[in-house]
């Protein structure tokens, strides 16, 4: 039994995987042309960002030409920084007494870049060769819609319903975008960053209170030894 730790194994494999990944990306560029906006590889993982219009073509190509038969997940990312911060600094009742809106932090996007606030995120695998790819597509805020993957990967059905419900993204060609988790009359898109998490806002953070200072009656001279034993 060898006692190689798993990192050594990964490092040994890493160059080979990257070659494979680059080849895959090259084929993708060949098939989709300019629709491939950006790509990224990191320790065997492959990201590719495509134009929104090529979103369904990408799925079709990956499944039928490349053999990525396994649908892993589909979701979205809201890249807008939360206007509420970490929500842990709410010393006041945020609902009755809303704080001043903070200055918007600059939007930073992650791996494989991004130009818009909302970004689709999906991952498919090829189980026979162990390859996988993470696909992304930017969605303009004024038209949150994308072609549906359901025709290619039937498993995308529920994932797209979830993304529709949580982010408000429309999927053209989806057989029925209905609420999946939330009740039918629910308003809003909870996973958007500007949707407040009430549980954290109706109650002040207990960690905010600090130990009260020493009463003034004492004579000056702070104890050098500090509080901790």
């Amino acid at each position, binding site marked *: 039994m060898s006692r190689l730790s798993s990192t050594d194994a990964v490092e040994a494999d890493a160059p080979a995987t990257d070659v494979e990944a680059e080849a895959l990306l090259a084929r993708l560029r060949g098939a989709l042309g300019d629709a491939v906006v950006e790509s990224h590889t990191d320790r065997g993982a492959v990201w590719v960002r495509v134009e929104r219009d090529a979103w369904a073509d990408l799925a079709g190509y990956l499944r039928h030409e490349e053999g990525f038969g396994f649908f892993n997940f589909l979701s979205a990312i809201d890249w807008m920084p939360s206007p509420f911060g970490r929500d842990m600094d709410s010393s006041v009742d945020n609902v009755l007494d809303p704080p001043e809106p903070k200055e918007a932090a600059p939007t930073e996007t992650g791996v494989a870049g991004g130009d818009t606030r909302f970004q689709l995120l999906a991952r498919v695998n090829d189980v026979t060769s162990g390859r996988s790819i993470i696909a992304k597509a930017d969605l303009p805020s004024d038209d949150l819609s994308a072609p549906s993957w359901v025709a290619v990967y039937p498993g995308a059905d529920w994932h797209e319903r979830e993304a529709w419900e949580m982010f408000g993204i429309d999927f053209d060609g989806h057989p029925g975008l209905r609420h999946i988790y939330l009740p039918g009359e629910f308003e809003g898109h909870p996973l958007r960053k500007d949707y407040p998490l009430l549980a954290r806002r109706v109650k002040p953070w*207990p*960690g905010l*209170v600090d*130990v009260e*200072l*020493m009463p003034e009656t*004492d004579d000056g001279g702070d104890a*050098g030894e500090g*509080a*901790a034993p």
Partner: protein
Amino acid sequence: MSLVPGLVKGLKVTGTTVVRTVFPKRGMRTLMPAPSKGAATVQYPHVKEAPPTRARGVIALHEGNCTACMLCARECPDWCIYIEGHKEKAPPRRAGGKPRQVNILDRFDIDYALCMFCGICVDVCPFEALFWSPEYEFSEPRIADLLHDMSRLSEWMETVPEFEDYESGSVAKKLKVPPT
């Protein structure tokens, strides 16, 4: 396809379990029925199973060690720890030294109705003031009574067991429960 039908084998399994439960003893006293020994269950209010030493039953507070540093309250994912304290002068440790400034704990409440028993507070406490006790019988008819205050939390200190030894091969240092 085996010779004995699966139906008969199934009857054998349940039948054997009846015999094993009613006559758990082997050898001489096989014929003494003793289902209470053979059963996998215990009669709870009469017999109690001892949870392991590490079991996260209830959090005990070592009042003397707490400096009201707020770390546990801040790290708690549920915000269920409430601490209030103030600073005071204490007599110097050595004769002739300067008087020290100490944090006095006024309030230390844990709301067990909110607590998820994750143990983060116990982990982050730098002063060894919080400990897990395996005690688990503290349910209350009223939800408000699940808020344990400082005195109640300190009482749990008596039930905190000593830390166990580690399995061989470990280099971790065994901790000690401070005397109350």
